[in-house]
């Protein structure tokens, strides 16, 4: 029974309509995983844009700004695993994509390939590191640290098919990549202001924070 539950692919649920961009998820992860300054397993991307437009002599604004909190999406078709020359980057039986830190040589190929910026090089360790979905906590029936830390209850982790049945199958909004590239185990509830994937009207408003 337990192994059946574990074998189900887990995915993150992210409610962009709730997220205020407070980055508690990012820092709770950083603290729990004891990450160096330049490594962030979870990152909060602020996508912003808009301008003033003239409407029959009246000027109105259509500005928008919203957040996407992204770690690793433990994709069904992970770009990182395809390029890894050692097999260190692997998909566990429970579906989590994890770096075997005893195998990895730190060639950074996975970081070049991943369109979410999930694999990150640790200069301290000399190899790649990445969100492991807190699989040990999940196996013990707990949620990942980022999920538990979110004060807005905008994050969750669960079997991805259950999440999709409950919240729909949306896995792409700007500025995320089109889902067809890696088939992320990610379910998004979009912000009311959310722009569709591929949008070019906005920009990344917090490049130094990610």
């Amino acid at each position: 029974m337990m192994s059946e539950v574990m074998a189900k692919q887990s995915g993150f649920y992210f409610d962009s309509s709730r997220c205020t961009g407070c980055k508690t998820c990012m820092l709770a992860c950083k603290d729990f995983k004891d990450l160096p300054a330049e490594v962030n397993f979870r990152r909060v991307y602020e996508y912003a844009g808009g301008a003033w437009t003239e409407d029959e002599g009246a000027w109105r604004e259509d500005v928008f700004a919203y957040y996407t909190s992204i770690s690793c999406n433990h994709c069904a078709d992970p770009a990182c695993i395809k390029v890894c020359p050692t097999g260190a980057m692997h998909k566990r039986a429970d579906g989590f994509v994890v770096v075997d830190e005893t195998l990895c040589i730190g060639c950074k190929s996975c970081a070049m390939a991943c369109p979410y910026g999930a694999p990150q090089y640790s200069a301290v360790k000399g190899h790649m590191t990445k969100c492991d979905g807190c699989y040990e906590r999940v196996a013990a029936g707990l949620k990942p640290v980022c999920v538990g830390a979110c004060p807005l209850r905008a994050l969750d982790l669960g079997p991805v098919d259950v999440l999709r049945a409950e919240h729909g199958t949306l896995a792409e909004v700007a500025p995320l990549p089109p889902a067809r590239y890696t088939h992320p185990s990610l379910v998004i509830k979009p912000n009311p202001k959310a722009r569709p994937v591929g949008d070019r009207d906005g920009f990344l408003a917090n490049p130094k924070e990610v």
Partner: protein
Amino acid sequence: MGWNEWPLVLFTVLAQCAVGAYWLCVLVLFTTGGRSAAAARLERLMVAVLAVQGLAFLFSSIHVGSPLRGANVLLRLGHASLSNEVFFGAAFLAAGGLAWLLTWRGESALRLRKPLYILALALSVAFLWNMIGFYLMPTVPTWDTPLTPLAFLVTAVLGGAMLANLLFAASGLATPRLDRLVAGVAACGLGAGVVAAVSLLATLPGISSSVQSAVLLSPDIGMWQAVRFVFLFVAVGLVLRQAARTSRTMPAMAAALVLVACGEIIGRGLFYALHMTVGLV
């Protein structure tokens, strides 16, 4: 400029020069009629090509975070391009090295060396093929284009011609016919390089994601390409002059090699600077 990836810049440029030079040396060894002392000297001097390849591997080990575990890179042989690339590169070096060791057995071992040259040639093609394959990542729109194989091939042809040119002269094998071969190959490489660079500059404005535009990745790319092509045109001019006048001077040949190496290092620096993904990076 992608100078943060300088070990990869040096690895790819030097390895491609070595591969191209090996192709030309083997071609000349197999097509020059009759055995001469000069051909034997060229076989000995081909160790320089292997040394350049060895130096390239040294630079690649600087790129990885844990080089002492480097052998793990072969664990996904047959599945990952990088595993295949390292395997074929090392096998090329081994086959070429064995052929070189057999030159010390003199002419009697020529029958052993010939199949080794063919094998090393095939392995070097597989090496370059997988090096190209590694960069054709569907999630990296600036690399996943036909311009990547073209750029790598241009480096192999131009750098290979300049390195082989030196070895032909140093071995005493050089003839007006070989000068024309080198100049022709180099001119073709330069022509392909111009096509590749113009196509690259023309396609960049069409590549963007929500957070990144390819044209903004290396704002000085036009200036750097201009500097690169000044180097390449002067270098090719030097070998054309050598072929036209049928006179060779070692300093001019060495300068041509250094100019091509510098030009291709600039080009490769731009290549790494153009890394972006279809998503957040």
